[in-house]
């Protein structure tokens, strides 16, 4: 329950921003609840005017009718205002929470994002937040008006008979206890339900994004089977959660009928013992007893809904409060750099039990072209991850122009690099938006020039709407190679002082590659470049080749010097030319 209280407090923090609206909503809710209680009294007075044939008091009746009509209209307006404001507050809060979630995602360490099923995170941002919204809305609209009704009814009852009122007031908390007990149980189930839902969403996400491979291997049935398993797990938790929580209403209603029986018993006995209560007063009392217990029902059913909302809220807050990447240090700043890069005794591993990079140590002079080669899985991409500070080294330090990259803000570091990765990513936006990521204020001319240089212009101009083609909407069929050309265009548009090209042209055909070679060379000129590549031509022209194996740099040198060494590099190099028969 402790976690729950914390969650409630966090929700209140979000509500705090809309304090004025919340107060307004509560006042409207208070006023309409009072007016709703008052209307039956007026109706009662009206009925009192109707006594018998010929004895109807029309002079008293007419103004009462007008009074009632006014009250009805005001109540309706207040109700509408209250609901509308509640909707506004909820929509705003949900918007705020989602924005906070995405803001947090942008600063979470990659180790978290790489190791978390994306579907589960999406489920938190979308589905869980939605459930929270539903709960909040219900809570807003029923909790307070319920309380007002209870207080109002107690006041009305007190005015009739104190003793019986005490009976009512003392017995009803029973229903609250029952509701609380059930709520506790169902909260646990709601959490399990939300978890199962997250797992299912992760599965759906993964399977649907891989649909084509699923088809190629006729794995559709297998997918369905896996889905079915998760679906059944979800259904069994859902059934428990829904059933437990739906117990609240019948149970409180039962407690209420006990209260009702109690009032009937005590009330009737008081009347018989002539304790100053008339039959009319007794009837009135019974009707208030039902009115009084009704909000308890509402409140307890709201509470169960809130359990569900809280379970979901906790999952979204878990994300929002996830430890962000290590704090930025602003001891120094990089500007107009030359581009000297030094790795000093750097060690790193993703999994602390399996060392990967060990004691990496090398220096690159400004403007040098560095090729990193080695068998797959030897740690080439990891080196890039460290250089860009996607991950931080466990030991050792990395310097740019003598400044430790851990002493400057990440953005300042990343500004210095233009990066193209093998794993292409284009977002569902227009081609133009995809290109200007690094330079949002680029002019059309600059964009086209960059696209020409990268060789992307010729395919872009053939797209349905050219540079304004929205990917994922107007067009969906970019090949890997075309995506890679787009990624290169991004860098061409605003070339920073240093470049990282991790298999940047792996999906581009060699003829196209040849066409852009010149522009690429122009781009790399004077810029320190790190190139992970398999193509010999790129490697051969490097000023420095780092040969990696099993997390170590085992050889360094130029193409010629490494061949002369007759070592691992030579082995790699020669395998290229061997015939495969």
């Amino acid at each position: 329950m402790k976690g729950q209280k914390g969650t409630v407090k966090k929700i209140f923090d979000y509500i705090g921003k809309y304090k004025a609206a919340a107060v307004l909503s509560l006042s409207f809710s208070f006023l309409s609840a009072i007016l709703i209680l008052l209307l039956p009294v007026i109706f009662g007075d009206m009925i009192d005017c109707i006594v018998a044939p010929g004895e109807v008091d029309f002079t008293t009746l007419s103004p009462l009718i007008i009074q009632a009509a006014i009250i009805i209209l005001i109540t309706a307006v207040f109700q509408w205002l209250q609901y509308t404001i509640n909707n506004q507050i909820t929509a705003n809060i949900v918007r705020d929470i989602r924005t906070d979630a995405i803001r947090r995602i942008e600063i979470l360490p990659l180790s978290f994002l790489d190791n978390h099923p994306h579907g589960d995170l999406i489920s938190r941002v979308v589905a869980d937040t939605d459930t929270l919204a539903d709960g909040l809305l219900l809570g807003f609209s029923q909790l307070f008006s319920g309380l007002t009704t209870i207080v109002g009814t107690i006041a009305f009852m007190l005015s009739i008979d104190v003793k019986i009122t005490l009976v009512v007031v003392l017995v009803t908390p029973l229903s609250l206890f029952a509701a609380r007990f059930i709520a506790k149980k169902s909260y646990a189930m709601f959490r399990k339900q939300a978890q199962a839902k997250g797992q299912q969403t992760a599965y759906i996400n993964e399977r649907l994004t891989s649909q084509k491979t699923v088809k190629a291997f006729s794995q559709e049935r297998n997918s369905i089977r896996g889905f079915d398993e998760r679906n059944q797990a979800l259904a069994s938790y859902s059934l428990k959660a829904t059933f437990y929580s739906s117990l609240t209403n019948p149970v409180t209603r039962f407690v209420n009928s006990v209260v009702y029986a109690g009032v009937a018993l005590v009330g009737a006995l008081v009347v018989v013992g002539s304790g100053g209560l008339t039959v009319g007063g007794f009837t009135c009392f019974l009707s208030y007893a039902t009115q009084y217990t009704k909000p308890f029902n509402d409140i307890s059913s709201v509470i169960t809904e809130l359990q569900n909302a809280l379970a979901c809220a906790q999952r979204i807050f878990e994300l929002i409060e996830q430890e962000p990447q290590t704090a930025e240090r602003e001891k120094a700043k990089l500007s107009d750099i030359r581009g000297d890069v030094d790795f000093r005794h750097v060690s790193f591993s993703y999994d602390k039990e399996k060392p990967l990079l060990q004691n990496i140590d090398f220096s690159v002079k400004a403007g040098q072209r560095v090729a990193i080669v080695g068998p797959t899985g030897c740690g080439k991409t990891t080196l890039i991850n460290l250089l860009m500070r996607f991950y931080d080294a466990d030991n050792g330090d990395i310097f740019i122009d003598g400044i430790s990259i851990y002493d400057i803000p990440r953005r300042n570091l990343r500004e210095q690099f233009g990066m193209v990765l093998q794993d292409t990513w284009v977002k569902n936006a227009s081609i133009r938006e995809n290109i200007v990521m690094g330079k949002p204020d680029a002019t059309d001319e600059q964009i086209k020039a960059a696209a020409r240089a990268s060789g992307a212009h010729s395919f872009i101009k053939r797209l349905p709407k050219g540079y304004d083609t929205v990917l994922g909407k107007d067009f969906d069929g970019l090949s890997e190679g075309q995506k890679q050309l787009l990624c290169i265009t991004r860098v061409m548009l605003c070339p920073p002082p240093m470049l990282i090209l991790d298999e940047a042209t792996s999906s581009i055909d060699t003829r196209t590659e040849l066409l852009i070679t010149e522009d690429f060379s122009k781009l790399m000129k004077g810029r320190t470049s790190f190139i992970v590549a398999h193509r010999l031509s790129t490697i051969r022209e490097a000023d420095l080749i780092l040969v990696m194996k099993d997390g170590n740099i085992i050889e360094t040198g130029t193409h010629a010097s490494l061949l002369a060494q007759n070592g691992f590099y030579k082995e790699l190099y020669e395998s290229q030319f061997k015939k495969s028969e």
Partner: protein
Amino acid sequence: MKKLFSYMRGYRTECVLAPLFKLIEALLELFVPVLVADIIDFGIGAGDRGYIVRYSLYIAALGLLGLLFSVTAQYFSAKAAIGFASRLRLAAFSRIQGFSYSQIDSFGIPSMITRLTGDIDRVQSGVNMTLRLFLRSPFVVFGSVIAAFLIDTKSALIFTGTVPLLSVIVFGIMLAGIKLFKKVQAKLDSITKSTGDNLRGVRVIRAFRGEDKEVENFSATAAALAKIQKFTGKITSLLTPSTYIIINFATILLIYVGALKVNQGDLSQGEVVALYNYMAKILVELIKLADLIITMTKAAASASRTAELIGEETEDEPDDENAPLPAFSAGAPLLQFRDVTFTYHDGAEPALSHIDFTAPKGSRIGIIGGTGSGKTTLINLIPRFYDAQSGEISYRGVPLSQIGKGALRKKIGIVPQKSVLLGGSIRDNLRWGDPNATDEELKNALQKAQALDFVMDKEGGLSYEIAENGGNLSGGQKQRLAIARALVKKPEILILDDSSSALDYATDYRLRQALSEIGKEMCIFIVSQRTVSVKDCDTILVLDDGVIVGKGTHEELMKSCDIYREIHYSQYPDEEGKA
């Protein structure tokens, strides 16, 4: 929408019993006033304390009985609603499995995810609430109207006027609400999309310092959602106040007419009170109903989105892998393309034109060409991911259209350009090719795919758990596992779609060597941009803009095909001029 109800089948008992028991509970509640009247008339009237105690206990006992009925009802309705929703979800997911790739694109993955999750959730709670309340509320409303008729026909006409008016308003708001809620859900799709985008593109976003921009875009989407939610709220919030106004104005009218009638002696005061009480009952019930109707409106909007998914014709239904194959003509080549032309979208330029070639059993076919030349499109036609509009592709002399997709795909092993591995053990992933493969067979395939060493180095070997989308493997490792997976299938046709792009040369070389040793039982298609990968093929097809511009062996093409020569020299500049 109607289709959805068929998923209710099997829960008929629950669907009948849940509302019925709720009804019984309501009836039991109706007995309470009768008992109270007895207490007043006989207990208090006769001063009989024993009677009072007894009847008070009866009231409590009715409550207990009501508890039993309603708990059972809650259980039944939860069971039916969840059973229904979970079947619906399975049905929708299965339906998606039968979608063709273009259908998947037209819905979009994020939208399918929200439909499968959030939307079906809403349908579930809608059904649950409906089963619990929907029978009860109209029962009370119509019961009250009937009771009013029994008291006084003329006054009851006020009731009969009120109920239709209410219905018009309620349904009007509901219809408007459904439309709006559909819009809300569609915006929610964009939130899903945007979140997914941010997660997948995190490296690029950070490298380009696009975090702020992304947050800004996301906030705009979230704000647009909030805006339409608020508007929807304004409309649906009209429901309760308007019901309140109508019922209470009807009440005023009722009392006024009652007053006139009492004055004339047509009605007694007690009867006016009774009529008033019935009107009050209707109000209480309608307010509950209004909440229910909002839930139902949301559920209906979501249900129609789900129905769109389920109602979509599946263009690529998974059919039986073991379906009997048609009689093949002996001596026919394994695979033959005859004048095949294919266009992705109507009216667009053809992606492939007049493709013509033959792939005999055991042959090696190389396909080479620039980015966007149609290589991948061509091989996508072989397993019938797409069907060509004109021309004919035949397998052992039988047109592909006459062979079941499942049975056809069983013969084909594909290694896609972008290797896709899913969460689960390496063994599970490899067994996609053959669910009954032994560890020995798996290792054999891994060996050929040059993946055995690194797999055995992993903790647990074949049991090593791959993260979602292969997140804990390098690009080259994924690619080799994808190759092994295709080999496990022991296909007749193996398609390698640029499958060694992430491999270093040494590994690539060993892989090619291993493949050449596989022997002649397999027909292998090698799609590549490197001439070195295809130079040993029996036939190399050179594609340019969807047309075959060269066909032959490496040596032949080096002589006859300009484009092939250009490609080759772009990779081996040293050789230029020597030839």
